[in-house]
């Protein structure tokens, strides 16, 4: 199964019955899968007239308390950013997929990770975050989609799957043997009062500045809790590592090969793969900085995650960058050479 299809199937299994989107390479398989399946299971597939329309349809269904999603790729996510900010302002749960492609502008259609800042800092205007999940296999595309819906409902916020064109387009075996939790009750949803309760109001407009300030501060307490409890990372051979690679998504797959190559040559290399990009698994990096001599951030961008690595380690170890951009992907050999170089330099 393709990575994009795995997202779509997992969403359906998680109980999502509403999908709104607008086609863009390299994520259109999600829409195609939804178009085929949704009508058969009583769900809604709707190809909107634009990305902006689609995200606002998501806002509508989320307000009614139903699991809902949209998907797009980089330029389309920029268009959706206004809606993402509104979802955050109204504390609505939703799942948004970004199968990143090269940018800026229309860029290209090949894979990229250059929307890291946009995703982890919120993307739209205002003080807010999204939970950002970074799958690195087709299996994880499915798994993190389910996780994304669960976290979104739990915290009443948007989860974003920050994938890339490679993981979206590649096929791997995938198992759907998931233990899916029951959907939580949503007493805040606008489901009709039946004259039996007060109106539920979903809104992101606060004309009273004191109230808006209080709401933002409350929301940040929630973010603080999420940062403490929900950060996830996978560590590979890090325990005794001198050189540690930081990489997510497709870059982590490439880096893993390079780490194996380095180990075969007697270099103690390891890999930390953030699974959540927001919250960033800072504690894992802080611990690694105790013994590592150098950290290399391997990215399909001009260096975005590297800033979070530097923050997490408080620059206690040198952090260097190994990258390709524009739709290019670093080769395992390029990463291996970076490891060799870092090992010779020694670092701290």
């Amino acid at each position, binding site marked *: 199964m393709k990575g994009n299809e795995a997202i779509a199937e997992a969403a359906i299994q998680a109980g999502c019955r509403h999908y709104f989107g607008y086609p863009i*390479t390299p994520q259109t398989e999600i829409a195609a899968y939804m178009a085929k399946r949704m009508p058969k299971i009583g769900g809604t597939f709707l190809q909107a007239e634009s990305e902006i329309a689609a995200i606002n349809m998501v806002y509508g269904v989320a307000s009614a308390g139903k699991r809902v999603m949209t998907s797009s790729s980089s330029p389309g996510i920029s268009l959706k950013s206004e809606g993402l900010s509104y979802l955050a302002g109204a504390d609505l749960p939703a799942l948004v997929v970004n199968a990143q492609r090269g940018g800026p502008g229309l860029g290209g*259609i*090949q894979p990229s990770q250059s929307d890291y800042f946009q995703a982890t800092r919120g993307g739209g205007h205002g003080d807010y975050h999204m939970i950002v999940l970074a799958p690195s296999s087709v299996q994880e595309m499915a798994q993190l989609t389910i996780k994304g819906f669960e976290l979104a409902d739990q915290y009443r916020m948007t989860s974003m799957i920050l994938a890339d064109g*490679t993981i979206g*387009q*590649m*096929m*791997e*075996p995938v198992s759907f043997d998931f233990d899916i939790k029951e959907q939580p009750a949503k007493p805040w949803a606008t489901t009709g009062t039946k004259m039996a309760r007060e109106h539920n109001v979903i809104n992101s407009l606060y004309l009273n500045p004191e109230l808006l300030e209080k709401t933002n501060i409350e929301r940040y307490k929630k973010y603080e809790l999420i940062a403490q409890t929900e950060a996830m990372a996978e560590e590979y051979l890090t325990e005794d590592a001198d050189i540690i690679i930081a990489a997510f998504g*497709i870059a982590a*797959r*490439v880096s*893993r*090969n390079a780490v*194996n190559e380095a180990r075969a040559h007697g270099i103690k290399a390891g890999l930390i793969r953030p699974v959540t990009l927001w919250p960033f698994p800072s504690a894992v990096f802080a611990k690694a900085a105790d013994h590592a001599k150098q950290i290399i951030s391997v990215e399909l961008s001009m260096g975005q995650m590297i800033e979070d690595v530097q923050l997490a380690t408080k620059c206690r170890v040198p952090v260097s960058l190994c990258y390709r951009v524009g739709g290019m*992907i670093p*080769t*395992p*050999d390029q990463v291996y050479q970076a490891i060799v170089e870092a090992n010779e330099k020694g670092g701290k």
Partner: protein
Amino acid sequence: MATKEFLFAGFGGQGLLFSGKVLAYKGLIEEKNVSWLPSYGPEMRGGTANCSVILSDEPVGAPIVLNPDVLVAMNLPSLDKYENAVRPGGIILVDSSLIGRKVQRDDVDVYYVPATKLADENGTGQLANMILMGKLLTVLDSYNEETVSAALEKCISARHADMLEFNRKAMEIGRNYTE
């Protein structure tokens, strides 16, 4: 076999992605770890298209094949581009009805199959890709009729069931072809 990396390369529309898919499904049915990764331009036909397939006993790391053990080349630009990337001791399969030149290397096994011509002659036009696949599995000594058949059934939708027999026939042609 620990890990074998395949690269199928040619023009869009030649069925290279499909070839890769059949190989990946065959691997999956034979309980290998597999990955399949396409790379192509925005065109439906024409332009370059290639497809990386990895079959392995271990979990697959990077899914991109840069130094294939096996290269299937279906046009000259692909052979020019990837000939030197093939690992020493590897295999290159050439559609010799579309590629006029010979492979320059002497440290790889090369098979020339006029697949596009054979496909036209045998009424399986368009299926040069599967003729090459038949030959490929034969030289790899892994032409297992049962798993090949099961893989084809996975890759060809019920709507196009009539294509199943054509594909099998094309693979047989490749299997029996000798230079």
